[in-house]
């Protein structure tokens, strides 16, 4: 009995130590950043926080995501009217997906089988079967669809249209819009909480972030942002992320050059972190100990330590960094 207890303690200690090492030391992860103006992909090493290389890809690359097995990168090459499939190790383009015109953002379902693409100029969402590399359907939505997200429980796909000012709720089984929620002016990004109970949506021109209840599809909270010394006209929320345990949420506030830290339980702003100029999009590290931000005007990314809520470094990457994805 005592022996097994000791073993238990030992195991726990080892786990604790390795965890501590993992969390305190810089993680050996790779950060991929699309460079809208350079037609390239920047590759940053998480451990050294250095730009490792820049790889030429399609024209005007914006949205980016990794497959759930981290073996492939998908990049929306907007001016090539395609989603490029890039091998995440060799960084060579190995194929394209028929995304429809001017793809900007897209979302993968949790299994990595389907992709939902916003076609901004055509007011459509294109649904792609990734294995078949084939478009299954184009779903008409509001004017200028942008933010798109799939709920972790696979029940919903939402598309936010910037000029219509709506969130469109798409049933992934029928691929039809079944409900619409009118939100604040110029919705940009949307993300579900990991329990699929809430949808967080940023509104760029209204300067707000709204939390929607997924069951009722109603707005349950509208957050506003006030930063001392920053004019209200600079409050233009874009990227939004919520951590797995719904403890903290983060909103990139564009030209305010800040990331808002939100208490995801109380739905209140807790702090503002100063990052680079015109912060657009956000990505967690796989262990969610860090947050990476793309800063479109200062041409860099900021690295935020989420345990301390401190910006620890910025890394110059190239012109107009837009999207970011992180591979362990």
């Amino acid at each position, binding site marked *: 009995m005592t022996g097994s207890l000791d073993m238990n303690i030992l195991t726990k200690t080892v786990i604790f130590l390795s965890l501590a090492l993992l969390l305190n030391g810089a993680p050996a992860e790779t950060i991929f950043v699309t460079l809208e103006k350079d037609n390239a992909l920047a590759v940053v090493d998480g451990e050294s926080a250095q730009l490792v290389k820049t790889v030429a890809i399609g024209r005007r690359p914006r949205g980016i995501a990794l497959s759930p097995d981290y073996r492939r990168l998908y990049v929306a090459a907007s001016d090539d009217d395609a989603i490029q499939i890039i091998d995440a190790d060799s960084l060579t383009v190995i194929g394209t997906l028929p995304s429809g015109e*001017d793809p900007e953002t897209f979302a993968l379902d949790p299994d990595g089988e389907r992709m939902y693409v916003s076609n*901004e*100029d055509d*007011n459509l969402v294109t649904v792609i079967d990734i294995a078949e590399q084939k478009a299954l359907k184009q779903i*008409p939505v*509001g*004017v*200028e669809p942008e933010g798109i997200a799939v709920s972790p429980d696979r029940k919903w796909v939402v598309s936010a*249209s*910037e*000029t*219509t*000012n*709506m969130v*469109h709720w798409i049933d992934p089984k029928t691929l039809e*819009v079944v409900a*619409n929620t*009118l939100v604040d*002016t*110029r919705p940009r990004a949307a993300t579900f909480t990991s329990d699929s109970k809430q949808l967080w949506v940023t509104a760029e*021109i*209204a300067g707000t972030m709204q939390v929607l209840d997924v069951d009722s599809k109603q707005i349950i909270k509208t957050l506003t942002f006030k930063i001392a010394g920053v*004019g209200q*006209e600079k409050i*233009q929320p874009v990227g939004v992320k919520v951590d797995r345990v719904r403890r903290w949420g983060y909103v990139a506030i564009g*030209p305010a050059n800040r990331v808002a830290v939100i208490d995801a339980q109380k739905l209140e702003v807790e702090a503002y972190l100063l990052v680079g100029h015109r912060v657009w999009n956000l990505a967690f590290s796989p262990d969610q100990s860090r947050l990476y931000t793309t800063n479109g005007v200062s041409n860099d990314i900021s690295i935020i330590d989420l345990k301390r809520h401190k910006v620890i470094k910025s890394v110059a990457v190239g012109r107009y960094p837009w999207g970011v994805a992180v591979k362990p």
Partner: protein
Amino acid sequence: MRIILTERLKAHIFRSTGATLLAFFLSFPLNVQAADEPTHLPVAYLTKEREAPTALSNLDPVIHDSGIQGARLAIEDNNTTGRFTNQSFTLEEVVVPLEADVVQAFKALAAKGYRHVVARLSAADLVRIQALPEATDLLIYDISTRDDALRGQECSAQVLHLLPSRAMRADALAQYMLKKRWQNWFLVIGPGDNDRLYASALKRAAKRFGMRIGEEKTWTHTFDARRTAQSDVPVFTQGVDYDILVVADEAGLFGEYLAYRTWLPRPVAGTQGLVPTAWHRTHEQWGAVQLQNRFREQAGRWMTEEDYAAWLAVRAIGEAATRTGSVDHSRIKAYLLGDAFAVAGFKGKKLSFRSWNGQLRQPVLLAAARSLVAVAPLEGFLHPKNELDTLGYDEPETKCRLE
């Protein structure tokens, strides 16, 4: 879409029938279904043919459909949104021939039940229709004038102005000049009435932002490129020292000849050179590139200021209909003029109407031919309520008295 096509066809018929327009127009059967279809909102577009301006060069094609293309795009956008709100929007396009009377056409639209009229008319025509008893119960969306008088002593509670006034444009320019410390201006004024109005706005802006107009001259030379450019401009600008030449030539008769030909090497701004404008093809920030793309796909050309203003007018109507969940005129009007109203105009800020004169408050672009130089209001120009109100006549200064 079918309805819009019919209306376009009708407008085409009007245009081609020329002088017989009015008789034909007045006898045309009514097809506005507002009374029995509560989710339908009909919008009218009223314009009058204009004499084609003398072409300065062959570089820019003459545009015959400025304004209407923006309205058409916005109707389409409203209907895309309307699919989800069960609202539909149609556009009736009326082009009054050169020699015909715009008042008759306006009265006919009012009689047909139109309550929203997007007007691309001259200041004189606008003043005439806004004073009509038929205008009392409707809203006129002015997408063409820039006159401060129409937003001041001659204002009307029935009119909303979508384009920035001359004062707003001049203030935008002056803010940038102050930032650059180009404070000593050489003001060159063209021969037209509008040029004098533009010059007055520049003088007002100069005073507000601490500029000095060191020299002011009226252009008296020819408008012949060969003569003017090579000999007249250097002589005309000789013997004056200044930071920047500011030109008021709205018709574009000589302003383009000034740059690179002045006696001293100085930049040019105003109606030519660095231009304050509501919209420009160099503008691509804040999602503007999307609007530029959608517009070009539809119209096959760049979007003009009037197209942008018409797009905004129809979008504002659509936004009010969406937010109020209604096509009722009084509800839409109350919402448009209320505090909650905001329309996104691809300029990074909420646009709304000034309660004191119906002017759309908006950022003003400062554009060079191939580069967007700045967007006013510039950083640091503060206002107790809304920084957009650092441009143009603010509430305490307005001469507009809306009943």
